[in-house]
């Protein structure tokens, strides 16, 4: 791109701040929280920074809904294609906001108990949220990557937030090293794709592109297709790390176990969903189902390659997560493996979205995945809220033995946790069940319509894995209600913020489980030009 072209672009800079309003609001809230942190006494901080964070998130949610009402069915871009507005982005953004708001609620009591700086925690959380939102809204690989880094750096710090605890330090360092490693993969993949999308034009060889729809348009004209294959593979690995899919999951259990519990809750719900948002955005729209292309075209081959790889990854992820969870004795570790397994279930929906060239079907499948992740976020955050309470100061009591016999001594916590576990297991009337139904339904629908046996096989494996997971989810309920406790134990006092969290998550789990219709419908969009082949 020569200089004159750059000026030409700048001449119509396509600035549209309204389109990034949610991100802007969250960022400003983060800065304000920093300032409150700097200018107020520490004792007042918890409510001030927590309340301010909640207000900021609420504002962002409002902005998000405002964008939604403004005809989000049509795909709009701004900042020269850097930012897009579509249902994928908005629905994911809402999920992020919900995750962060609940994390704020969980953390309010925790920061006090652990004597941690509330302001720093909340501002980091808000910046992480802004990063997640950018990941979902990026129409360009650069924005996606920037969002990912903003998110990651904030999360590295949060994982090591209990500075004097060696487990927390270990968790943070592991997350940092492996996270940087995966970011490097992703960046390298982006670079390769950029190189691979340089095309021969009458005016000479053009530069490559990192714009997602532009990549899709240029796939078949690239001068050296192996670059694109290698780039896509690298990005697959990079995103695979971020959402903890097998075989790139090995960091997850250690990091989730060592990180402070509210941070674990956040990491398992938020960044995972953000990873899915970016993963789906990039692979569904940059390497789309090539409707018009012949089987030998690069676009068709890349699509077939990543879809096949993703299916294998989905199978591995579900199976590894569930089977290894069976033998865990630590509750946080068990939930970590369960979160791997749930990423696997969500991947089934992703594969279904990738397997179709029909815009409506694809949007339905994407909506199913978002719904699944929302359901997972609610039950996961709820479960971790209870784990935070049971763990007490310093996160010490997280073994299964620590849960023995607490069922009727802390009935509210135990029954809430049971509901979340049953939902994770997928018992009807809960969000987890509906999530599985909509995701598997999309996969089967594609499978039956196109005769794609692979998708049917994925669903069957998913169902079998659900059967496996019965054992360990039930194990915790058995420990709480059926076992006797031999040691002294008194129920923790449930503070108001945790009560609110539990009430919201339990209601959410039942609402999504019993009346999911409105939410699913909202996540779907009929008009989105999902498959954008800009030719």
């Amino acid at each position, binding site marked *: 791109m020569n200089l004159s072209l750059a*000026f030409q672009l*700048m*001449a119509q*800079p396509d*600035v549209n701040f309204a389109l990034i309003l949610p991100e802007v609001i969250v960022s400003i809230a983060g*800065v304000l929280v*920093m*300032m409150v*942190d*700097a*200018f107020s006494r520490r004792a007042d901080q918890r409510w001030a920074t927590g309340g301010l964070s909640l207000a900021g998130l609420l504002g962002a949610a409002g902005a998000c809904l405002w964008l939604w009402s403004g005809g989000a069915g049509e795909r709009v871009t701004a900042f020269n294609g850097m930012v897009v507005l579509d249902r994928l982005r908005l629905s994911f953004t809402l999920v992020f906001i919900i995750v962060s708001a609940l994390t704020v609620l969980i953390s309010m009591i925790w920061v006090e108990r652990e004597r941690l700086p509330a302001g720093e925690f909340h501002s980091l959380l808000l910046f992480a949220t802004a990063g997640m939102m950018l990941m979902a809204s990026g129409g360009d690989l650069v924005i996606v990557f920037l969002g990912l880094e903003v998110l990651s750096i904030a999360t590295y710090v949060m994982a090591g937030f209990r500075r*004097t605890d*060696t487990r927390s330090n270990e968790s943070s360092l592991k997350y940092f090293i492996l996270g940087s490693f995966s970011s490097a993969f992703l960046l390298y993949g982006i670079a390769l794709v950029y190189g691979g999308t340089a095309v021969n034009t009458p005016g000479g060889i053009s530069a490559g592109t990192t714009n997602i729809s532009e990549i899709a348009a240029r796939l078949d004209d690239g*001068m*050296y297709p192996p670059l694109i294959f290698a780039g896509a593979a690298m990005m697959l690995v990079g995103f695979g790390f971020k959402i903890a899919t097998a075989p790139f999951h090995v960091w997850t259990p250690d990091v989730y176990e060592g990180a402070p519990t509210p941070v674990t809750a956040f990491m398992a719900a938020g960044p995972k969903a953000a990873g899915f948002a970016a993963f789906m955005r990039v692979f569904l729209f940059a390497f789309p189902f090539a409707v018009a292309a012949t089987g030998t075209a690069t676009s068709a081959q890349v699509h077939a390659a990543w879809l096949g790889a993703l299916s294998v990854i989905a199978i591995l992820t579900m199976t590894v997560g569930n089977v290894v969870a069976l033998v865990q004795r630590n509750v946080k570790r068990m939930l970590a493996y369960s979160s791997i397994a749930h990423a696997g279930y969500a991947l089934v929906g992703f594969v279904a979205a990738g397997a179709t060239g029909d815009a409506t079907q694809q949007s339905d499948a994407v909506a199913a995945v978002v719904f699944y992740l929302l359901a997972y976020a609610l039950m996961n955050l709820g479960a971790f809220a209870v784990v935070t309470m049971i763990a007490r100061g310093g996160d010490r009591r997280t073994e299964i033995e620590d849960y023995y016999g607490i069922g009727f001594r802390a009935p509210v916590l135990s029954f809430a946790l049971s509901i979340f576990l049953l939902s994770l297991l997928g018992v009807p009337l809960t969000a987890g069940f509906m999530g599985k139904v909509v995701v598997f339904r999309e996969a089967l629908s594609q499978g039956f319509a196109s005769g794609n046996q692979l998708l049917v096989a994925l669903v069957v494996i998913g169902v079998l894995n659900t059967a496996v997971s019965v054992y360990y989810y039930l194990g915790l309920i058995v420990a709480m209600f059926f076992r006797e406790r031999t040691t002294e134990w008194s129920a923790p006092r449930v503070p108001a913020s945790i009560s609110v969290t539990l009430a919201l998550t339990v209601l959410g789990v039942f609402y999504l489980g019993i009346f999911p219709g409105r939410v699913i419908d909202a996540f779907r969009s009929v008009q989105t030009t999902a498959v954008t082949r800009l030719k």
Partner: protein
Amino acid sequence: MFELNAYLPILLMFVVAIVFAVGNVALSQVVGQRKQTRTKLMPYECGKDPVGSARERFSVKFYLIAMIFILFDIELIFLMPWAVVFRTLVTNGLGTLVYVEMMLFVALLLVGYVYVLKKGLFNWSESARREAEAEGRVLAEMDSRRQAQRAPVTRAA
């Protein structure tokens, strides 16, 4: 695509450099004559006897200052090209937008600066003492914890 021949000299230089470095060290190992005395095995500190351990911990302040320096450094990197093209942009009618954007950027940096200032980052004397004390406490606690962990084992043995 690429004319790889052009890079041949660089490759050659790499090879020569590696051979030279590895070769010399290896050579001295082979032909060199060694007498290992206590003095010769001491770390070299300008001919003086070494004092204390070489593995010293630096105050975290050093790193923070370094990081803040980098931040303001990079601000300059952004400001430079902005300043260069600003005139062209003004003639293109984008002056206000670009000006406001850059001011926002600077304001954000200012926020960061105020934050570290209020957090007492530049308040060395007092905060350094407090921090050192806190660190000492943590280390002592970790030591005692380690000993407490070790104690029953030795008793059992």
